[in-house]
């Protein structure tokens, strides 16, 4: 599987960030290099993903039969809580922004590092600290509240909810510092030639994400702290039995957690805007529309939180305002979808693994997004609220779209990060497993939700059995797909073909430097004359021909 043309042997950059200044563990743990910090975030996030995924499989196994299957109700409640907490706070939120964002944003703006490299390292250690505290809480008791920590349940449960709240509180600081760093970096460290309108779309979306992170995360921090205080000391804040207001918590919580959904999906859109151009070898259709719609989502995302409270007894006026505003998120997303599809028009499309994930992403984003719009259609939400329909909807967005984007990013930038190619054939096989597994896991859940099966149910009436079996079967296929990915990328670390600076023929700025990049990102700073998504002036034969391994598959 390597019909590589021998003539244009790609070069593995000998002096790169992986061996400069040293290779020891100590040099990694004390590094201030954004690329190393990004890689450490990626590794940590992948470990968190494995833990969260393991919990997901336990959940699906338990739901294989209507009654008790492999655990008791208490364990089930703890496990779905941990699945949510780990996947959201330890994987989804940091994976693309802190992982790929850290690695790529400075390179994409032509900088040597982020604006505050020490804060960047601190952000990583805060992530670790938060993760350790949360995981310790999980080992010593666990919490049974669900990741939403709804009061007064969360403040009266006898389980160990405080360590997990504190863990999430600390993780919030990590998120804020990373966001701050990206905003300042984008504003102040852009290389000469990179104007705002020549900024890669990846950076635009990460920028929008960062704005949400620094504005919304403090609210979550305060809210979780209040819950912890009420739980630990019995102050009446949210529990009506002590004079508090339980719905106030829901407003506070979703004021962060709804924008947090966009912390998870905007980076996915960031990745896909890059991937669709690179693999269609085509200018983005409507740069400004794609770039500014990210800001639009970030802005409107702050005014939609009330759509989580349609059944809480809020006034119809509230519901109306929040419902209408939620529609606008759909509009901004629709703009992106149309522009991505139009980008393919008259392109030169290469069916490599990242592009396959783009196709999957488009599919899941469309249906995840449209079901989101349907959920904002107030009366339909009344039926779907807290049923498996919602579970399926947000998994389509979070797992479907964001996970596809994460995998696309992993494959697309793998040669840049490691200097080596993964095995394209296995990449395609795994992509098929992942996409099909995903469809079979979550499609039945839409139908379960339509039929009324509530979420967070340990046991369920027998009429929901067949669809649950289908969902569990799909989850096994999905897990298999992930294991294949893990296996071949580990092999590729050592045995992958040398990639060279630009194996994809991409025009993104990050491909102008060697793979892996040198410590200072560019040996010699390019002039950045053309935009990062400009392909129409492509020379007849690019000086560095891409390795055939990446192309062979599309020609059969």
């Amino acid at each position, binding site marked *: 599987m390597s019909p590589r043309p021998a003539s244009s042997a790609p070069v593995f950059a000998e002096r790169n960030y992986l061996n400069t200044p040293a290779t020891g563990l100590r040099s990694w743990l004390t590094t201030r290099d954004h690329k190393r910090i990004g890689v450490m975030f990626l590794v940590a996030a992948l470990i968190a993903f494995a833990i969260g995924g393991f919990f997901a499989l336990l959940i699906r196994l338990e739901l294989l039969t209507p009654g008790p299957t492999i655990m008791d109700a208490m364990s089930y409640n703890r496990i779905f809580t941990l699945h949510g907490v780990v996947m959201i706070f330890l994987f989804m939120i940091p994976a693309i922004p802190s992982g790929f964002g850290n690695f790529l944003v400075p390179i994409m703006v032509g900088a040597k590092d982020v604006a505050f490299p020490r804060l960047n390292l601190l952000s990583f250690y805060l992530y670790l600290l938060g993760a350790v505290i949360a995981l310790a809480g999980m080992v010593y008791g666990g919490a049974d509240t669900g990741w939403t920590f709804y009061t*007064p349940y969360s403040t009266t449960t006898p389980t160990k909810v405080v360590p997990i709240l504190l863990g999430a509180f600390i993780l919030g600081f990590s998120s804020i510092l990373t966001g701050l760093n990206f905003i300042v970096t984008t504003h102040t460290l852009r290389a000469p030639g990179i104007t705002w309108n020549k900024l890669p779309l990846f950076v635009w979306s990460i920028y929008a994400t960062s704005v949400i992170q620094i504005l919304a995360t403090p609210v979550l921090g305060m809210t979780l702290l209040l819950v912890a205080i009420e739980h630990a000391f019995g102050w009446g804040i949210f529990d009506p*039995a002590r004079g508090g207001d339980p719905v106030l918590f829901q407003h506070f919580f979703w004021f962060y957690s709804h924008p947090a959904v966009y912390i998870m999906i905007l980076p996915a859109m960031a990745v896909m805007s890059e991937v669709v151009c690179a693999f269609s070898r085509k200018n983005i259709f409507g740069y400004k529309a794609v770039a500014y719609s990210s800001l639009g989502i970030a802005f409107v995302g702050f005014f939609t939180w009330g759509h989580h409270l349609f059944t809480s007894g809020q006034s119809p006026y509230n519901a109306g305002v929040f*419902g209408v505003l939620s529609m606008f998120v759909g*509009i901004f997303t629709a703009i992106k979808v149309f*522009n991505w599809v139009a980008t393919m*028009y*008259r392109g030169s499309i290469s069916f490599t693994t990242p592009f396959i994930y783009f196709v999957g992403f488009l599919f899941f984003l469309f249906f995840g997004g449209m079901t989101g719009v349907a959920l904002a259609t107030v*009366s339909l939400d009344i*039926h779907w609220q807290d049923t498996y329909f919602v579970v399926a909807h947000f998994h389509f967005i979070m797992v479907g779209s964001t996970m596809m984007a994460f995998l696309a990013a992993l494959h697309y930038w793998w040669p840049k990060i490691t200097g080596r190619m993964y095995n394209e054939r296995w990449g395609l096989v795994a992509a098929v497993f992942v996409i099909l597994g995903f469809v079979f896991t979550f499609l039945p859940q839409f139908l379960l939700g339509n039929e009324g099966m509530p979420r967070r*149910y340990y046991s369920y009436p027998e009429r929901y059995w067949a669809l649950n079996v289908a969902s569990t079967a799909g989850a096994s296929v999905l897990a298999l797909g992930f294991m294949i990915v893990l296996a071949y990328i580990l092999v590729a670390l050592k045995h992958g073909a040398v990639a060279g600076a630009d194996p994809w023929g991409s025009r993104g700025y990050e491909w102008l430097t060697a793979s892996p990049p040198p410590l200072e990102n560019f040996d010699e700073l390019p002039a950045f004359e053309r935009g990062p998504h400009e392909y129409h002036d492509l020379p007849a034969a690019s000086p560095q021909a891409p390795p055939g391994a990446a192309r062979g598959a599309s020609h059969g």
Partner: protein
Amino acid sequence: MNELLRRLLNLPEQASQHARDVDGLHYFVVLVTMGAGIAIFTTAFWFMVRYRRRSQDEKTPEVQPRHWHEALFVGVPLAVFLLWFAIGFGQYVDLSQPPPGAMDVFVQGKKWMWKFAYPGGPSSLDVLRVPAGRPVRLLITSRDVIHSFFVPGLRVKQDALPGRYTQTWFNADQPGRYQIFCAEYCGLSHSGMLGELVVMPPADFDAWLAEQRRGAALAQDAAATPGEPLMLGSSILEQGRVVAAQQGCLKCHSVDGSRHIGPTFLDLYRRQEKLSTGELVPADEAYLTRSMMDPAAQVVAGYQNVMPSFQGRMTPPEVAAVLEYLKSLKTPAVQAGPSEGPVYESTPSK
């Protein structure tokens, strides 16, 4: 058409006009979504095939959108979304305004059961009886954490909040039995917090309610549990069992020896119970009474303290009756010889 789409989408039976209206919007949304999906993905796949890379040095032109492209990309979805919203919001507003003259039922959620109280006194656990074709307003609250009253067949859901009342209403027009779920996560037995909506022909309902008001049908909610080794014949035992069922004891405590949310009642009396503190206490009358009034004081090891206090909720004679009932729950001695049919009468006749 309705029936076909309803089955295709796996929607439950429609028990009210509201359910049919919501489903109508549902079909509209799904059909438009599918249409848009087919259009977008057909276009995308056509591009992928038509513009697949044929040689490594292919050039591509620069194609940029015109203003009308962007206007179309924004305008068309916006118009569709707002139309959906207008319909859906109208239905929501309708749902938040009960018609005057609706019959009120008070709904109280607590871990993990539903209590329904009718004007004039009658109440029932987990079974909500309503007349078909008459509007019913539910005034919903919770005694502990947040629950959510959900009837898929009505497409109605409303959170039950501690410390305040919320309301919703419905007009079920199809007599039958419909599932009630708790849709807001509320802990250990969240998925066991089920109930049943019984839509009765109006005449039957009126008769039932009148009977309830006469207080003649206490036994409705005190059906014997299968496997219950109870010998009837003593009126205090009978009364104790009825009280235990009405107070919801049997939702958490089994009478057949199986482990549930709380310890089983079978052979409980005089059993040596190991407490969470490690202490051993005999489950005598004093312990059992105290456990009813102050459940947190002595929790049996291996169980969570989730039981509410029954202080002030039972009269002293009722407590005594429940105690007598508990004392009667003994594993029956194995009898030799062939069984001669039921050894006790299962349900007191109506």
